[in-house]
């Protein structure tokens, strides 16, 4: 179980790093229409053509899979460890709701990832569904895919609302990952807890607000 928990922590930390890069790229969408389209498309083309990014992408897929599979195995084992639950349990008096419901939050994020991959990854990388055109520079017009998706208010709401479970999951997950990996410096952990909160808020608000801004663009 220690090995599995460490893998969950390490893959989680890697995914946290990935989100920083992802949000930085998404912030291009906030620029004025023409600049945003050009930058966003050339950025995504560069990524797709880079062999290093190809390796990183496989590490990313693997991280997501390992994070899910080991979390599932750990959860099943934890359920076996508590075969009977309490009739009355006031757990909110001794712990946060988030820390008690990481699995539920994880499932919500997984639901988001499935839809998100279907919207972008499947269309652009796998060529499924409606074809994607080229922009004036001959780059695949990923901007258009994004822009047209977020003209649909239901997608905007879905993308925004599901950033709440992401933020909560990140907040508890990030600070706990350090403890799982054996970081036990008291003051250091206090700083990590604060940084985790700041990080989680930036990610949730950042990812959550961009679809709205694109919608009203």
């Amino acid at each position: 179980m220690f090995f599995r928990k460490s893998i969950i922590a390490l893959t989680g930390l890697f995914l946290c790093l990935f989100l920083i890069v992802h949000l930085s790229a998404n912030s291009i969408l906030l620029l004025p229409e023409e600049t945003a389209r050009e930058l966003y498309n050339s950025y995504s083309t560069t990524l797709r053509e880079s062999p290093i990014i190809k390796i990183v992408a496989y590490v990313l897929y693997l991280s997501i899979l390992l994070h899910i599979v080991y979390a599932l195995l750990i959860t099943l084992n934890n359920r076996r460890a508590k075969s009977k639950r309490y009739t009355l349990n006031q757990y909110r008096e001794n712990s946060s709701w988030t820390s008690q419901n990481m699995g539920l939050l994880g499932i919500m994020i997984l639901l988001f990832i499935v839809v998100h991959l279907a919207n972008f990854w499947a269309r652009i990388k796998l060529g499924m569904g409606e074809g994607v055109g080229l922009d004036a520079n001959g780059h695949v017009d990923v901007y258009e895919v994004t822009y047209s998706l977020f003209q649909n208010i239901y997608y905007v709401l879905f993308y925004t609302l599901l950033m709440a479970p992401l933020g909560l999951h990140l907040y508890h997950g990030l600070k706990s990952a350090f403890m799982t990996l054996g970081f036990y410096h008291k003051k250091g952990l206090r700083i990590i807890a604060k940084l985790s909160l700041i990080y989680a808020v930036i990610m949730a608000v950042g990812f959550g607000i961009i679809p709205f801004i694109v919608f009203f663009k």
Partner: protein
Amino acid sequence: MKVTFKIWRQDNAASKGDFVSYEVDRLTEDMSFLEALDYLNELLVARNEKVIAYEYDCREGICGQCGVFINGRAHGPHDHMTTCQLHMRSFADGQTIVVEPWRATAFPVIKDLVVDRSAFDNIIEQGAYISAKTGTAPEANAILVGKEVADKAMDAAACIGCGACVATCKNSSAALFTAAKINHLNSLPQGKQEASKRVLEMTRQMELEGFGSCTFTGACEVECPEGISILNIAEMNARRAKAKWFD
């Protein structure tokens, strides 16, 4: 004062068990919770009914024997307290008090509110001791221990093994208990010789006993009568990784 106890009754490990409600009058708020249960048991004896089984020893908050889940909290509504230190003044007149045994697969119910905590003993047997020659007590200053180290070891050694950490944990993890036992001895010079073996074997036994994993909800620290910090768990993780990969 008058309260309704809703108490888990179960004849043995094999039987199913269920709640039974008892209205108890003429209690005072100065009574301890266990005294209220004693009083209820006397009423049951007078009525020729089976008494409620529950554990206690010192009733001073130091032995770790008492321990039941009261109104949704391990050891009752207060933080850092044993069941024996809980008084009826913590409840309102006319209140219903739900009392359940610790719930964990590794702590099977023996009878009513009594659970078998042998799993803790099995973990202790794997290394919560030092191998030393017995005989006359050695000179106290033969091995120097710094104040900070002594304090840290003592904070971990404060664990009374009541099982509240396992009881309150959503995963029934024994991480706080095991970490306290490991860090207590591994911090001290006397424990260094067997440090790696201790952490590896005790954590291995912890898993074999069927306890779950730690997910750092922090509930154990709040319910622990001694307030043992969950940082101990992070430290145990570090010690285990070091023993496993570098020793």
